[in-house]
């Protein structure tokens, strides 16, 4: 049986980088005005300070290969419904 780990419990995970699409160009790191992303030489950037993310999406806009995606925490995902459902009931 493999050993357990102690890991920090994040309140949200805004930034997700798809390693298969990431070109390691670092443009997302340079696009972040809050500087939440870091990149060790040649590797995939990650959000070292994800809690400081203000969810602007500039990193996503800047990525040349669609490797990075922005995720809202569950509490910030608004609800929408088909309009006809409201009048059907």
């Amino acid at each position: 049986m493999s050993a357990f780990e102690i890991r920090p419990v994040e309140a949200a995970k805004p930034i997700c980088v798809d390693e298969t699409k990431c070109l390691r160009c670092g443009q997302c790191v340079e696009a972040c005005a809050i500087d939440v992303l870091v990149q060790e030489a040649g590797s995939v950037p990650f959000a070292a300070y994800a809690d400081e993310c203000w969810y602007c999406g500039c990193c996503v806009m800047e990525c040349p290969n669609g490797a990075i995606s922005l995720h809202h925490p569950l509490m910030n995902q608004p609800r929408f419904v088909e309009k006809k459902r409201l009048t059907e009931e």
Partner: protein
Amino acid sequence: MRWPYENKTDEVIHHRSSVLILGGGIAGCMAAIGASIEGDDVLLVDKGCVRYSGAGGSGCDHWESAATNPCSTVSPEELTKAMLDDNDGYNNAISHYIECVEGWDRLQDIEKMGGKIRDTEDEFVGAAFRDEKTKLLFAYDYKARTTLRIWGTTFKPAMAKELKRLGVKICERIMVTGLLTEDGCIGGRCVGAVGFDVRTGAFHVFQCKTAVMCMSRPARVWIFSAAYPGLCEFRPTNCIGDGHAMGWRAGAEFTLMERSVKGEFSAAGRSYPPYMAGNNHNTWYATDLIDAKGRAIPYADRDGNILTDVSQRFYPAKDQPFFLKGGAIDEPLFDIAGPETLPYEQLHEKGYQLPFYADLSELPQEERKVIWGMMVGQEGKTQVPVYRYLIEQGFDPEKHVLQCYGTGWKSAEFLPKERQLFGIPGGFMHDWDLQTNLPGLYCAGDVLFSSDCYGHAAATGHYAGRHAAHAAKNLDYKALTKSQVDEEHRRIYAPLQDQDGIRWKELNEAIAKTMQNYCGEVKCDGLLKTGLEELEKYEQNVLPHLYAANPHELMRLIEVEDVLTVAQLIIHSSLNRRRDCKQAHFYRSDGEAGPSEPFIVVRKTQDGVKARQVSLDFAGDLRTNYALHSLKGGNDSERV
């Protein structure tokens, strides 16, 4: 985990430029551009990256109050007067007049830089909000045509490119922490600034002849979330009021810092991300709203007449010259009140049921298209977080309706003691050159008192920049005072030492709670003075025992030290306003009787805080003073 950047905390880098621009958001970039036109060398320093930094970095959908655009039917004088009247004079006549006169000029500049300001792709031909000749699009009041719809996601990248083209020296990822003054004296001429690299920790010293302060407005003074600090406030995490703090420490004058409002927005637990939940505010004006049974919620004009057609939502009422909507317009007075959905209390009585929804499906096609895909998409923080996100979730504006939370666009409720600097709060006091009381220090954008929004930041930025450059021509460099530089160096780097020290979040939370307890909705001297004592205790006992593990965390920590300074400034301002002032949302339980005092201007001196009163109409006649001070010539001479 190792910090991936090299440790350069023992390096000192010196810079020298005629004009120093402090902050690279909209105001800062336009200040650098305005200053460059005068020909002097200009250096711009920004905590982040110029391409996307600032409150407008990720976009903007509306450019307000451009009264001189070719389609406007309202003069800058009328528009500025309306803004002043809406606040009984407690507003910034100078900065808003500049906004109204020069906003259109700046928009044209941005177009030349590569920003998109008109419907060049002809997506909205025939729409009531489009002018066929100029292809400009308008928002809110289609008769006034003073607020334009813009493709703001294109603006910041265009400005960043323009700065390079003009040869502006750009220093990014550097947090400026303090102003340098002549002989190191409080209240002295501004001669430079210091800061540090937020990745390597290198120390930077800037010497200049004049400087322009463009660091936006304070935040996280009353509201904080340790789990989601980036979502606490409306503006970016690092727009935190550093400029206010360093200005206060240097002896700059401030006014209306006692003005705050009950919290309006925080997606760190209560509100949803801006414009992501159902609403009919700004970006989403004037979508249909429906109730839980699909019943359409009526819009009414300011006279209470129920509107029967969507098109009526975009025109003023009978006998009304124009109406205003936008960022700084919260509860407009009758004169400028535009159409709105009926208030919740009335809807409840009439049997409308929660939840409500924003419904785009039955709008005329061009109104739906301009909201969904243009306004939602170009507004800051909407292209990726709202537009693309909701589409990925399957949202179709012709089939789906988006739920509203609570009863308004804020999508949440706050306690009166949970306050924010929303709307048109306080800031730097200044003159018609946008110069502060510190000679050589100019200011622009949201640092100005009673200021707001994108077009305002751009217009005042350019204005302040060209004034700073013009003044620099007749100035020499002044020597920097070693002891002032050394003290700031000591202050910045101290928190890197004590690994058992207190981290920035714990301090921010404590400041916020203190301000809620002692500087809440209703003020009184007893509470304010106790609050000040508590904050001073943090200054004496906590600041020497802070810890930051690396330059990034140091940035967050020094920002919180600035929040502490701003909290003190707010309490001093509150102590010096002795009577209630409705327009400042300022109430006392121990207030003196009598009419509200005008502007109360405060500053820090060697001998403590000093206050003076300034008349609400200190700006004087707008046209005359603008003509005297604007430094414009050439094609604007017919205006003056």
